[in-house]
């Protein structure tokens, strides 16, 4: 069961990427990614929760009886998410207002519990923390790409709203890629999220099959077990 650190990193970022391979936690993935800033913010918050919850569960895993492990895991995850929610509310007020309900909802993102149950409950603390972080970052990268794609096609800009995260001075970092662009509403609305995610999955599968050197056979379908 024990994996090398290299394998853990590869799994989180690519082979078992939660966003485009495991397809876990689609609710926030699809809902929040209307801009890069939103996607990255929620992605990083999720990565933080995943690293912290894996790191918190691994050292106590031997004291938690099997019958109540899910209850204890959820309790730990919910407490950590609440801590992060309160922290963001206090110190990143505008961003907190934008992401709103999706921060508390990280609790219900099944990828968090999935990694705690599948990895942290069976491994030592250091690899567990790394696994949580890498899985979280893998998801954050997907959210960033999806946010970038939708923002570019939908509004013709990148990084709009960055002032919400970094203060009004950051407004100058907003990149207008297509000036005088009238926008493409579909990309910003929910269907754009599904289409964008499908394109990302297709791109990953294409890269994998090209790297394997085989004619484009369909890779094993990802196991879809979302809420």
């Amino acid at each position, binding site marked *: 069961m024990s994996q090398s650190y290299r394998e853990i990193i590869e799994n989180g970022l690519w082979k078992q990427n939660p966003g485009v391979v495991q397809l876990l936690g689609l609710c926030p993935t699809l809902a929040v990614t209307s801009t890069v800033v939103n996607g990255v913010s929620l992605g990083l918050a999720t990565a933080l929760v995943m690293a912290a919850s894996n790191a918190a569960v691994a050292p106590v895993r031997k004291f938690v*009886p099997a019958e109540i492990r899910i209850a204890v895991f959820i309790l730990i995850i919910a407490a950590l998410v609440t801590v992060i929610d309160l922290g963001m509310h206090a110190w990143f007020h505008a961003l907190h207002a934008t992401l709103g309900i999706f921060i508390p909802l990280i609790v219900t993102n099944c990828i968090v519990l999935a990694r705690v149950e599948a990895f942290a409950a069976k491994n030592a603390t250091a690899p567990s923390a790394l696994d949580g972080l890498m899985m979280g970052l893998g998801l954050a990268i997907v959210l960033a790409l999806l946010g970038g794609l939708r923002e570019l096609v939908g509004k013709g800009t990148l990084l709009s709203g960055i002032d919400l995260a970094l203060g009004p001075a950051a407004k100058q970092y907003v990149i207008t890629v297509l000036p005088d662009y009238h926008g493409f509403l579909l990309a910003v609305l929910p269907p754009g999220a599904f289409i964008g995610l499908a394109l990302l999955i297709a791109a990953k599968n294409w890269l994998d099959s090209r790297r394997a050197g085989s004619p484009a056979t369909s890779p094993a379908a990802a196991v879809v077990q979302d809420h």
Partner: protein
Amino acid sequence: MTERDASESITRHALATAAIMTGFSLLATVMLVSMHFATRAPIAESEREAKLRLLEQVLPHSLYDNDLLQDSVRIAPGGELGNRDHTLAYRARLEGAVSAVILEATAPDGYSGDIRLLVAIRADGTLAGVRVLAHKETPGLGDYIDIAHSDWIRQNFDGQSLAKTPDDAWKVKKDGGQFDYMAGATITPRAVVKAVHKTLKYFDAHRQELLAAPAAKE
């Protein structure tokens, strides 16, 4: 193992499990309580700042010299303003005399759900400014009511009053009124115009109470 031993060990196991669960719950409680106390002051402070920034948008600084958040009147839900919860009306004062009142109005008939507005009315009944606090209108179509997307709300409402515009002209141009709208989204501005109109009428009807009521405790 006798039957008695077995039932005793089951009891012991159940108690141990319960104790562990309680331990984890206590630990989580301690963590949450300390985080709550650590963030309580910064959260209150940043909410206050966010609110002040909003109020400053609808009301020019030259119109008041008091602390807006300290001088408010509670308005019960269910009245003409359309609010579903208690809201606060803020009073702006210049050298003690009320120069303007800021009301929160709700337009219940937006294209998708409530549109919440902040409406600043000068003591003489003219509009100092209107802003959208929250809305769920279609991005790219109905969201031009938001100052972040267009100047529509300033061009149409700044300086308006009941005296200037008769009741039957408080409609969008398509319905025979005098307010602009953008093609493709008429329901949204229609709701906003109606809500601003009813807010002005509310101010007109409750002028005395609003200006004279003692300030509510926050």
